[in-house]
């Protein structure tokens, strides 16, 4: 009877192992323990391994963006040369120089020498769709003071914080596409008002924006000279009471 009482008293300090032993004494003798039992006995070890894997995942994205800052420090902000050794193979930049064709910058190879010739030429357009670019990696794009067109379609790590940095391109940027970025919300779109030269803006298919139709109207009001391609004002309109309750006070207010 002492065994049965033990789990109650030791609720705070007992481990899963102790509990299972007390409840089912015969189970210990059972040979061939299952994998689950094995993992459960080593709960804290498994938890530590999972935390480590999570940290590694995050570090991977940083790794991809890190070599950008190394290049910038070594060669100065004006020399945007993606073909230097150490450039990560994954982010694929498509850059267009003045009147030239689109050039793909993916890894080392034959195009290395080609790019080296154009290294002082200002870059007009960058297509970084699908790249793992994040807040740190944007350093390089922001160094391009003559950039006119930027496409960040479907970039998984571009979020509101990244948008707040785009004001540095305000003097030249005319075209911007953010379609399909999962982390951008209407709060980030609010800081696009710095881009007074912007003529075309694509904000369609942004899943994190709470009210796409209303957001598009507000962005159009914010940027009067810009053509905003978005969800369309009619999207999200529902006849009836549900629409009204969605609009007002989107953040929780303490009572």
């Amino acid at each position, binding site marked *: 009877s002492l065994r049965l009482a*033990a789990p109650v008293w030791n609720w705070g300090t007992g481990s899963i192992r102790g509990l299972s032993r007390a409840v089912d004494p015969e189970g210990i003798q059972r040979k061939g323990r299952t994998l689950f039992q094995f993992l459960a006995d080593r709960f804290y070890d498994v938890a530590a391994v999972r*935390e480590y894997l999570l940290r590694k995942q995050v570090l991977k994205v940083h790794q991809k963006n890190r070599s950008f800052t190394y290049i910038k420090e070594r060669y100065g902000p004006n020399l945007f040369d993606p073909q230097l050794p150490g450039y990560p193979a994954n982010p694929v930049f498509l850059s267009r120089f003045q009147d030239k064709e689109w050039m793909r910058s993916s890894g080392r190879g034959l195009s290395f020498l080609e790019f080296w010739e154009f290294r002082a030429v200002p870059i007009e357009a960058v297509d970084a769709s699908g790249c793992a670019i994040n807040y740190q990696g944007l350093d390089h794009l922001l160094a391009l003071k003559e950039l006119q067109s930027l496409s960040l379609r479907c970039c998984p790590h571009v979020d509101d914080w990244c948008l707040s940095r785009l004001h540095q391109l305000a003097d030249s940027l005319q075209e911007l596409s953010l379609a399909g970025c999962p982390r951008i919300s*209407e709060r*980030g779109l*609010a800081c696009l*008002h710095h881009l007074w030269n912007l003529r075309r803006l694509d904000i369609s298919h942004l899943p994190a924006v709470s009210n796409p139709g*209303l*957001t598009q109207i507000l962005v159009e009001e914010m940027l009067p000279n810009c053509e905003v391609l978005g969800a369309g004002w009619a999207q999200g309109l529902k006849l009836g009471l549900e629409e009204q309750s969605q609009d*007002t006070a989107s953040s929780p207010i303490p009572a």
Partner: protein
Amino acid sequence: MLRSALWLGWGRGLLGLGLGTRRGVSTLEWDGKVSEIKKKIQSVIPGGAWNPLYDTSHLPPEHSDVVIVGGGVLGLSVAYWLKRLEKQRGAIKVLVVERDHTYSQASTVLSVGGIRQQFSLPENIQLSLFSVEFLRNINEYLAVVDDPPLDLQFNPSGYLFLASEKGAATMENNVKVQRQEGAKVCLMSPEQLRNKFPWINTEGVALASYGLENEGWFDPWSLLQGLRRKVQSMGVLFCQGEVTRFVSSSDRMETPSGEEVILKKIHEVHVKVDHSQEYQPVECAIVVNTAGAWSGQIAELAGIGKGPPGTLQGTKLPVEPRKRYVYLWHCPQGPGLEAPLLADPSGAYFRRDGLGNNYLGGCSPTAEEEPDPGNLEVDHDFFQDKVWPLLAQRVPAFETLKVKSAWAGYYDYNTFDQNGVVGPHPLVVNMYFATGFSGHGLQQAPAVGRAVAEMVLEGHFQTIDLSPFLFSRFYLGEKAQEHCII
């Protein structure tokens, strides 16, 4: 856990059977004997706390290395950094004591949630810069396996401070300091203001400073929940209770000049459980005072300020609660999506809230108009008489608006110089402060938490030097005055 079953048998044998048979022994003696026997058993067999006579699972543990008084964003930040910077995993036992788990009166959740780098002191700017970097990478700092990522709902819209002729020179100097420290702030003339924000009435405005990056507002409740979740996963214990007493011991020491100084060290913290007279004495090595608006009371409990005025013993912690109102209104013709958090030279401020043309704002009252901090009742006349005219004068669209709701919260107001108190007390050697931020505590919480953790673990500030914010400045009279206070 076979061991603990053994203790139980042993303990029960000693006490359970023994109680019935002995006579003529008073209960007072018994309590003493019980705790003595318990200590003997525990010294022989090390392990967790246990009590054979009654269930103590709702009480805090009996020992903890660090006790943090106050579970708001500052307390949780200190707990997080203590666990993160400890040398070995699980080296430090931390207990967070919070009186109200619903946080109904806590300044953290009632705050407007703004973060800015536009301060006049370089230390404040650095604290804010680190905090914004923490918030930006919050899902790396506060990641918990299997839990969804945190969404702070950060609006990077910036702060816009307006200055009249009088304050223009100070503003220019401040902006120079801010830029030196690395904040991205720009100065605007009234002409540029009118071009950028046509809804502002620039009458009386000589200069404006606008934060371009890393400034804005966010949801403090999600930060609090994120910190809480992470800190619990790191092994910090939480307890709902109120600190009622500190038990300390004193030591007489002599300074090099021969003066006698009495140094106190807190040994026990008595934590009283809600709605009951039960309390638990928690033995501790370090106490961190992050009680916000009530830090002054906690400091008094520790004996800070009990002495002849003008001496170090007699210097109280000058932090007291000040009530501030926040109003939420709707204005259909109000400023658009680009509106930053506007701070008028008169002290009124407002910001957008959501997509639906709702705005949050308020105004700090002057010294004569200070409301009574006894409760959190809202004074709606204050909005009608004081706040609305100022807002309508600055933004003409606000002449027609409709107040939807309002609430009040406390500033942990530092009456000395409106800046935080960070670091240990010179006489009560193991009490550390992280309070008194007078309205900008939330935005500096991550950096201050790290500073206090460094002070506790290393003995000095490592990353940001917060020596101007030590307690001793109250006795020495050296003000670290912050001029940009909203």
